[in-house]
């Protein structure tokens, strides 16, 4: 109520979705296996991620949700199997900044202002003459997009947890990635803030057409955000099911009280119990 750092839902007017090439594949995992020593975190995971879709990833603790994002983002190697992003290897995709990562913790550099943090990806590699893809939105415009206009010069410690996470999202978008990997980005935030950021993220997704892989612990969040919910199972980490969420777009907070929403939630909760 009246919190000045929250954008009101009225601002989040629906935007016609960007044209998405039907059926194109953003990322593809084929029999991908990840081992940490003797422990198998992911065992023969095969899945195609459709371009432009919003995937949420659910599963019990230790099912390899985060590991899957780390595998796709080239932070950890696959022991066997293949991962490709837009037909490239994960390393090539990383070098070309095809994807961006949003961590649970905003991971801002505390000595840099909000604006300077958003500009960081543009600075890395510039002196080495690497061709950095620059999005059509400037860092300032991105901060405005996430509702932080006027706070460009604020240092991270002067911002709330939700605002810091929004800076992190703006930073992730600055090179205009085609794939956005989000590892429980709103897990540490209170429910009000989380609702607002969920709506904002949906708006960004609709405006940019970016493909999103979003790991969460929360079933309602998974249903609310996702077009498709990927359910992983643990010991070892495998794909259990991809559930299509057929709710109207754009989503609204009130939709969570509808019967359809409850039905999806109940189905996923039962599925999760058997994972």
């Amino acid at each position, binding site marked *: 109520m009246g919190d000045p750092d929250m954008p009101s839902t009225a601002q989040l007017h629906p935007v016609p979705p960007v044209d998405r090439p039907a059926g194109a594949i953003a990322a593809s995992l084929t029999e991908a296996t990840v081992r940490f020593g003797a422990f198998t975190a992911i065992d023969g995971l095969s899945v195609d991620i459709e371009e432009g879709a919003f995937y949420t990833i659910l599963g019990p603790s230790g099912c390899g949700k985060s590991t899957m994002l780390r595998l796709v983002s080239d932070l950890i190697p696959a022991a066997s199997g293949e991962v490709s992003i837009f037909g490239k290897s994960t390393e090539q995709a990383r070098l070309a900044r095809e994807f961006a990562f949003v961590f649970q913790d905003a*991971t801002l*550099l505390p000595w840099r202002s909000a604006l300077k943090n958003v500009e960081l990806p543009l600075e890395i*590699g510039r002196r080495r003459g690497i061709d950095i893809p620059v999005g059509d939105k400037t860092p300032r415009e991105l901060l405005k997009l996430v509702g932080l206009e006027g706070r460009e010069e604020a240092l991270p410690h002067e911002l709330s947890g939700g605002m810091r996470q929004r800076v992190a999202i703006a930073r992730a978008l600055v090179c205009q990635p085609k794939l956005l990997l989000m590892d429980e980005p709103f897990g540490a935030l209170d429910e009000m803030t989380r609702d607002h950021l969920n709506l904002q993220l949906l708006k960004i997704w609709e405006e940019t057409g970016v493909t999103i892989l979003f790991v969460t612990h929360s079933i309602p969040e998974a249903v609310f955000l996702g077009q498709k919910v990927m359910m992983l199972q643990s010991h070892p980490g495998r794909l259990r099911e991809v559930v299509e969420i057929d709710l109207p777009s754009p989503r609204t907070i009130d939709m969570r009280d509808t019967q359809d929403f409850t039905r999806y939630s109940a189905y996923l909760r039962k599925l999760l119990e058997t994972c």
Partner: protein
Amino acid sequence: MAALENIHAADPAVDIERAAARRQKMIAIGVPLGTAAGLILLWQVGVRLFAVPTYIAPAPSDVAYTLVDKFPILLANFWPTLFESLLGFFVGNIAAVLIAVAFVHNRMVERAFFPIAVFVNTIPILAIAPILVLIFGPGLTAKVVIAALICFFPTLVNMVRGLQAVSPQALELARILSASKSEIFWKIRLPSSLPFLFSALKIAATTCVIGAIVGEWVGADMGLGALIIDATFNFNSPLLYATVFMSSGLSVLLFATVSIVERMVVRW
């Protein structure tokens, strides 16, 4: 303008709050100052009451008189010590920072040299000072080396810790951005080490003065250290006390300077 005045006049609660804050601040400054003044007064009365000879313990009034009377001499000896302290401060800290960077970049260098650094640090500065004066002679160099040596170790340890105090997630972010080793160093490691560096520099700001004075004790005819030795041997206690006062003033000056620079640099 009128609006501004209105806001100011409309809220007497703010004025009361501000007055309370001001009172708090006065208490915070006034209590320690009052205590110090009381102790000095006690010292003055005690020395006079028990008729303590001046060469054993001078009264504060004698020290104050000497401080004013002998100020030109004190100042003439202040400058060399300041110069030695500052040179030692810069030499010692720059060496420590560079070696810390080498340690962080190459674990073998750290394994090879860190035990030696620890060993050198365990030698009391008073014990090593004569050796350094023998090596470098009675001139400026020995004092600077002693002051540098005393600054070196705390800065080395803090700087190594600071350079390693980068969150694993910041390094993952750097990896996703395909940052080079030197980009990680300049954009992440070095800035995040600054708070650690400054806490070491604040220690060094006071210890470098100790180093310079110890160096002057072993062999010098100018400087606050030399004046301390001179005043002691001549039983000139008021001058001795005044010199000690100047020495501590020098430490406070350097400490305050580092603190101000810290506040300008480390804003987070």
